[in-house]
């Protein structure tokens, strides 16, 4: 990427993302301390729930969206060798998203939007919160359009050619996000905003939860896909090898798009307003979307095996030790995959229809999503940052050994934080409580796990500081790096001509539309046929 303005544009996105991350980490440490109850001066539901709301919005919406947009612009320009399409349009998207973020941050930090990052009605936040969230999403849609247009323009200029894998996957993610965000957009535009502005008095909570559930599952794939992109196109090369299968990578990305969307009801298994038949249908789809992850695991690990054997690894598992563990991209992949095994298993449990009763709304749930998101996904975001910072700033990475230390600390901290969290869930501890005040014997068993989690939180905070420090020092003081080029992994078996279904998305958009109509059509329509009695707004 030779255009320095474009590089700065990507960096702007990354600094917003990681700035939000840093602040949210501090809030996280406060929360794990407050919840344990060991420092009585900290106890305050009002502060705690404002913190959790802010932490959730920053980590789940701000860190992710800005990182994904920045990474997408980088991949599009470097893999397609084109400038950003319509820079003014792209910049407008960035500024709208940033404005929305600031707009939502104000009520959040003032405790006027303590409705958590899921903002379920009928508890109502300050209207500025809903407006800000809307603008953040709308800003991201500008990015989606740029990605889709750039791919279309490239294909017109290169008829019949194979779309580079990094851009195929990035565009898949952009299209996925458009479909995904439509659910919450409908909820906010037609229900929450009119209600928050006082134009309507009541809101159908069942419909709101259904529309939010539409978004709530595939949004995790929006977050996950950039991590998978790095696993496919950076990691094999960093390990000294090639990508085991380019075609199957495309198959996995398509399957995640198609099966990741029509399955949101596993978030509503315990809800009264959807029928069991629909829940079972969504449950089947949820298991189906496990397949592309299982395939990704094989393709990526096989790529590592090929690289490890080329480095001299012998026997069944010798190639593991032979990999370059000191390379941050490779180390990140290994740690990320380890957490994917554990977090993925938790996901299988959550998907399992009635077994959800064992874990629904218990501490297991935040344990799960910290492991899989803060663990598997964010670890790869760190690796991407370390890989791209020199190429974006023209400065060599300040310290590679600090990067590997940081990644190890993040992994260790995440295991110490999330393991007790899962156990607490199985022991029945509810989620979203700020303290344990139940005068019940069974809660005595919870204390040691809460104390262990504090250790995890502190280790993670240290790791976050190392991460930000390393990037900051790179940008401010790093030695000059003249080679700004980026290379993407080559395929082990060169790809010939691909069928259209692995080179474009027209067919898949049709399939998605069909599946969404089947999976959400009647379940949403029913709210207009049922006689509902909608509640009005409540404070907290």
């Amino acid at each position, binding site marked *: 990427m030779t255009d320095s303005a474009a590089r700065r544009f990507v960096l702007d996105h990354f600094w917003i993302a990681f700035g939000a991350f840093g602040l949210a980490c501090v809030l996280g440490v406060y929360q794990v301390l407050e919840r344990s109850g060991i420092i009585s001066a900290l106890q305050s539901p009002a502060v705690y729930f404002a913190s959790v709301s802010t932490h959730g919005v920053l980590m789940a919406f701000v860190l992710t969206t800005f990182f994904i947009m920045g990474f997408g612009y980088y991949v599009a320009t470097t893999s397609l060798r084109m400038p950003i399409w319509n820079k003014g349009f792209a910049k407008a998207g960035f500024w709208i998203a940033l404005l929305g973020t600031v707009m939502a941050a104000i009520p959040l930090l003032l405790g006027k939007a303590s409705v958590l990052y899921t903002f379920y009605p009928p508890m109502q936040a300050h209207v500025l919160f809903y407006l800000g969230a809307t603008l953040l999403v709308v800003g991201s849609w500008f990015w989606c359009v740029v990605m889709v247009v750039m791919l279309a323009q490239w294909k017109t200029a290169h008829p019949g050619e194979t779309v580079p894998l990094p851009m195929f996957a990035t565009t898949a993610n952009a299209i996925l996000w458009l479909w995904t965000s439509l659910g919450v957009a409908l909820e906010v535009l037609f229900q929450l905003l009119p209600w928050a502005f006082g134009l309507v008095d009541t809101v159908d909570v069942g419909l709101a939860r259904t529309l939010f559930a539409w978004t709530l599952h595939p949004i995790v794939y929006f977050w996950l896909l950039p991590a998978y992109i790095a696993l496919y196109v950076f990691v094999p*090369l960093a390990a000294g090898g090639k990508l*085991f299968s380019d075609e199957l990578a495309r198959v996995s990305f398509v399957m995640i798009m198609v099966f990741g969307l029509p399955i949101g009801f596993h978030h509503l298994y315990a809800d009264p307003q959807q029928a069991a038949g629909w829940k079972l249908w969504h449950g089947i789809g949820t298991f189906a979307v496990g397949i592309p992850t299982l395939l990704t695991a094989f393709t990526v*690990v096989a790529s590592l*095996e*090929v690289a490890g054997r080329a480095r001299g690894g012998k026997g*069944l598992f010798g190639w593991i030790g032979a990999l370059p563990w000191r390379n941050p991209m490779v180390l990140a992949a290994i740690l990320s995959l380890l957490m994917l095994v554990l977090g*993925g298993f938790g996901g299988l449990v959550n998907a399992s229809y*009635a*077994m959800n009763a064992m874990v629904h709304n218990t501490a297991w749930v935040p344990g799960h999503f910290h492991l899989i998101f803060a663990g598997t996904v964010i670890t790869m975001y760190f690796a991407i940052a370390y890989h791209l910072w020199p190429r974006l700033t023209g400065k060599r990475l300040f310290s590679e050994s600090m990067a590997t230390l940081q990644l190890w600390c993040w992994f260790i901290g995440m295991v110490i934080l999330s393991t007790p969290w899962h156990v607490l869930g*199985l022991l029945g501890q509810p989620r979203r409580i700020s303290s344990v005040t139940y005068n019940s014997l069974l809660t005595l068993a919870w204390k040691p796990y809460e104390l262990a989690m504090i250790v995890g939180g502190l280790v993670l905070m240290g790791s976050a500081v190392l991460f930000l420090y390393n990037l900051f020092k790179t940008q401010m003081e790093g030695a000059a790096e003249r080679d700004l080029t980026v290379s993407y992994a080559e395929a082990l078996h060169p790809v010939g001509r691909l069928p259209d279904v692995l080179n474009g998305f027209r067919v898949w958009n049709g399939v998605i539309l069909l599946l969404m109509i089947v999976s959400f059509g009647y379940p949403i329509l029913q709210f207009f046929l049922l006689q509902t009695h909608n509640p009005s707004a409540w404070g907290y």
Partner: protein
Amino acid sequence: MPPSSRPHEEPRDDLPIGTWTLLCLIAAGMTAAWLFLYFGVFLPRGVVQ
């Protein structure tokens, strides 16, 4: 720049047997753990509908 030569060929073609073995072990573990949780923890807590 990383080496771009073809990887050293294993005697048995390009079959990633380490990956296959590792993932099969993981799949077996996950299946056992899931069955334990479903039939050994969840259902004994009481049939639900």
